[in-house]
């Protein structure tokens, strides 16, 4: 029988394979939050010790390396292949971060889409922090990283940020991007 949790006695052969699908989904969501926290705690620890310039430089360096890896493992695991915009969107829907965000996709055609991030816990944390770090992280780093993700699939994919923080107090959108390939 599948386990809904691990409140039972110690099982020397415990593995995730023994958990119900519902529990695995909870783990997927909590792991996405854990991933975000590992990255965030490192940023804050370095910022407190060495200042925001060093923390930002490390953050940029790390994610310039890891974005391709993120796309690679997602695509390999889920057999996502292609060089069009819709392929990138599929990888964005399924990658290890995706459970932390709420996204809305307007797919105009396979080579053209508008993607809106409706909820972003990182932006919420930056807004609460109040030191304006979203100007660097969202307006500089994320633009570069979205391009890296797009170019993993197709170096000719054009990424245009349509809306970036700071956002209006009543805005539901954290950021919005146009993704396009002209053939």
């Amino acid at each position, binding site marked *: 029988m599948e386990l809904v949790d691990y409140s039972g006695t110690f099982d020397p052969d415990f593995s995730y394979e023994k958990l119900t699908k519902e529990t695995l989904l909870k783990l997927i969501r909590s792991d996405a939050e854990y991933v975000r926290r590992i990255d965030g705690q490192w940023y804050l620890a370095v910022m407190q010790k060495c200042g925001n310039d060093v923390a930002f430089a*490390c953050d940029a360096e790390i994610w310039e390396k890891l974005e391709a890896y993120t796309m690679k493992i997602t695509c390999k695991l889920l057999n996502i292949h292609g060089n069009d915009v819709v392929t990138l969107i599929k990888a964005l829907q399924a990658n290890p971060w995706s459970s932390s965000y709420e996204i809305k996709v307007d797919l105009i055609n396979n080579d053209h889409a508008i993607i809106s991030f409706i909820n972003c816990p990182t932006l919420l944390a930056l807004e609460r922090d109040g030191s304006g770090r979203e100007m660097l992280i969202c307006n500089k780093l994320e633009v570069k990283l979205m391009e890296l993700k797009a170019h993993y699939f197709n170096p000719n994919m054009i990424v245009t940020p349509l809306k970036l923080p700071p956002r209006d107090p009543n805005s539901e959108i954290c950021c919005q991007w146009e993704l396009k390939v002209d053939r």
Partner: protein
Amino acid sequence: MKELMVDYSSSFDPNFSHEKLAQQTLTRLLRATAEYMRRIDGHWYLSVMEKWGNDEALDCDIKVWERLVIYEMKMLSSLLNIHGDDVVTVMKVLQASPWTLTYACDIDVRSNDCAIVTYRNCPTLLALENEGKGREGLICQELEPKLMGIIAHYFNPNIRVTPLKLPPRDGSGDICCQWEFMLER
């Protein structure tokens, strides 16, 4: 009932969510995410080390993980309903930790209050050995005992954690590390 997806090679689904994936795909994703976490942590360490040196990197690493292991214990015990104040409770959480998916680990539970944990494979130690700078002297001998203590004390401050074997090890066939968890009542 709609068939579950073993992957996402099909056409774009505007309502895609992980709920549509098959159970075996979810476990594979969780394994890949565990390795992803290890890489994020490793890249941060290396980036700070290259810019500011190993002392600063280790100091940040300690600060980060002193906070995050508590978060992980809270998250796992709440999500998987693991509660108790004995050693076997700690063992259950160690088994369920996303990090354990990246290691080969044996747990020998001798009683509810005594267990031996043996890590037979550890990709972090392998990377440190390949690097050859001896950083395992700090990470495995200073940081890890501290973190194992925090994990155990989250459940019971009287659990004693004794490292029985720590790196450096005698060749690649040797175990990576071994720990005794004990609670005397």
